């Protein structure tokens, strides 16, 4: 069996795992904020389910990250005892829910990316990564089916639903590019055969979302401008507020077991 330590420095792997875990965690947290407030009961169920899947995935990635870091931190220490600048989620994940259309569009853009990423990770030379990718991949494929379907139905629904979906797309598009940006961490992971270079995922993603937008009668923005920083810890103002809530109990009662 190949040890990941043979393939890559542990700090690079750790950093990369945080990007996976934090993105799942923060997006899952945002989705969970909907609890009890969805537009229709079926969506209450679906949103709870997606949040549950995502936080489940976060546990796998962060648990592994903690092992790789090897400083005795587990999923909970990583989730609840880091401040914003140590989080490595993409900015898109932390964007506020807005209306249901914005939440849905955020989910769709990320689902399509996660689906491509996890699909590639199934053949990672790192067994743990491949294992997690198989498990998470099944869930995310379902998420993508659902979000594609809803984007199409609401994009091509009433004038009002079309308007809201287009507004959501326009507002979130500048946050899509970060998902495909590559830095030294990504390049090292790719070189070691542990993960795809994110840039290689873009053409497939473009095709997936392009096809959905067409069916949804939505106009894909032309701008290439992309907000960046989340993957290296430079976040929007939103993340700090999210964390102050998420981390309250662990911060206020240090050392307690729950």
């Amino acid at each position, binding site marked *: 069996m190949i040890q990941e330590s043979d393939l890559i420095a542990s700090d690079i792997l750790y950093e990369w795992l945080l990007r996976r875990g934090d993105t799942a965690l923060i997006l899952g947290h945002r989705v969970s904020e909907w609890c009890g407030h969805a537009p229709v009961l079926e969506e*209450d*169920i679906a949103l709870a389910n997606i949040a549950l899947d995502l936080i489940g995935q976060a546990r796998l990635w962060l648990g592994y990250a903690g092992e790789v870091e090897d400083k005795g931190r587990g999923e*909970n220490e990583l989730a609840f005892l880091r401040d914003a600048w140590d989080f490595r989620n993409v900015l898109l994940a932390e964007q506020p829910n807005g209306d249901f259309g914005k939440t849905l569009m955020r989910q769709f853009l990320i689902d399509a990316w996660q689906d491509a990423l996890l699909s590639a990770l199934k053949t990672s030379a790192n067994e743990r990564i491949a294992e997690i990718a198989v498990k998470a991949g099944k869930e995310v494929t379902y998420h993508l089916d659902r979000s594609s379907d809803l984007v199409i139905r609401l994009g091509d629904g009433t004038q009002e639903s079309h308007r809201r979906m287009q507004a959501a797309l326009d507002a979130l598009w500048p946050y899509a590019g970060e998902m495909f940006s590559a830095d030294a961490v990504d390049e090292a992971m790719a070189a070691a055969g542990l993960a795809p270079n994110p840039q290689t995922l873009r053409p497939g993603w473009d095709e997936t979302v392009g096809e959905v937008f067409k069916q949804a009668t939505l106009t894909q923005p032309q701008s290439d401008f992309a907000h960046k920083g989340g993957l290296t810890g430079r976040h929007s103002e939103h993340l700090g507020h999210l964390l102050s809530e998420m981390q309250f109990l662990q911060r206020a009662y240090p050392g307690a077991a*729950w």
Partner: protein
Amino acid sequence: MSEEERAFQERIDRGEKIEPTDWMPEGYRKTLIRQIGQHAHSEIVGQLPEGNWITRAPTLERKVILLAKVQDEAGHGLYLYCAAETLGVSRDELIELLHAGKMKYSSIFNYPTLTWADIGAVGWLVDGAAIMNQVPLQRTSFGPYSRAMVRICKEESFHQRQGFDIMMKMAGGTPEQHRMAQDALNRFWYPSLMMFGPSDKESVHSAQSMSWKIKINTNDELRQKFVDQTVPQAEYLGLTVPDDQLKWNQEKNGYDFSEPDWSEFFEVLKGNGPCNKERLDARIKAWEDGAWVRDGLMAHADKSTVARTAAE
């Protein structure tokens, strides 16, 4: 009693299930719609006090468990609305009645969840009381309701165990955690006792409902059973039930206990609970904010039908 009514009662007495297409008295239908509808509403509104702590769950595992629980509850709401729909009332009609204040949901959800221990107490006490009410309803005379109850009870008892597990951690944790656990018990004890409703002596509908097997046990029977089951659990947790009068009564083989303050119960029912307005406002806001989504989905479905028809 008419011939039909007599035959209907005899079917019930024989333990047969009544199905939606069977003849049934108007009162039976109405009572069931009210009861199932209120139960469905309770599942939906019940998401809110628990949702209040999802974003602050103290560990990722607890967060996942709580999400799964809330998801189950929304699912229960769905089964129950479906069961009610078999009686000729739509989910949207029921929701509109709820929002107009013309239908109730369980008053327990008008109490706030103030600490993480409350999430434990809701599972342990509130779900515990709910199960006590619901287990007999698996044998209720109306088929769809009975079948929904079978599914629901299985999941609820799982939730109750999870709630008790939280209470164990909290009661046996740091002094602050123990204090939270005791505080949660103090606040949820009497409201949980109220969940069984006032003494049957006060209730005019009970006799009819019992003969229809829409109601199986009296409120007082169930309350006694709940107290008898819960007090030893509280002792096991090292928590004190907030009732000076609580005492084992060898003769009746059960506990003597204080009645809840029924004036509080009626105040909450009237709308004066700590969270009545917030809960209903939150649901109405969700419904109104979501109107464009429901309209959009409907419009798309219509377009698709037209497209399919044209293609044929």
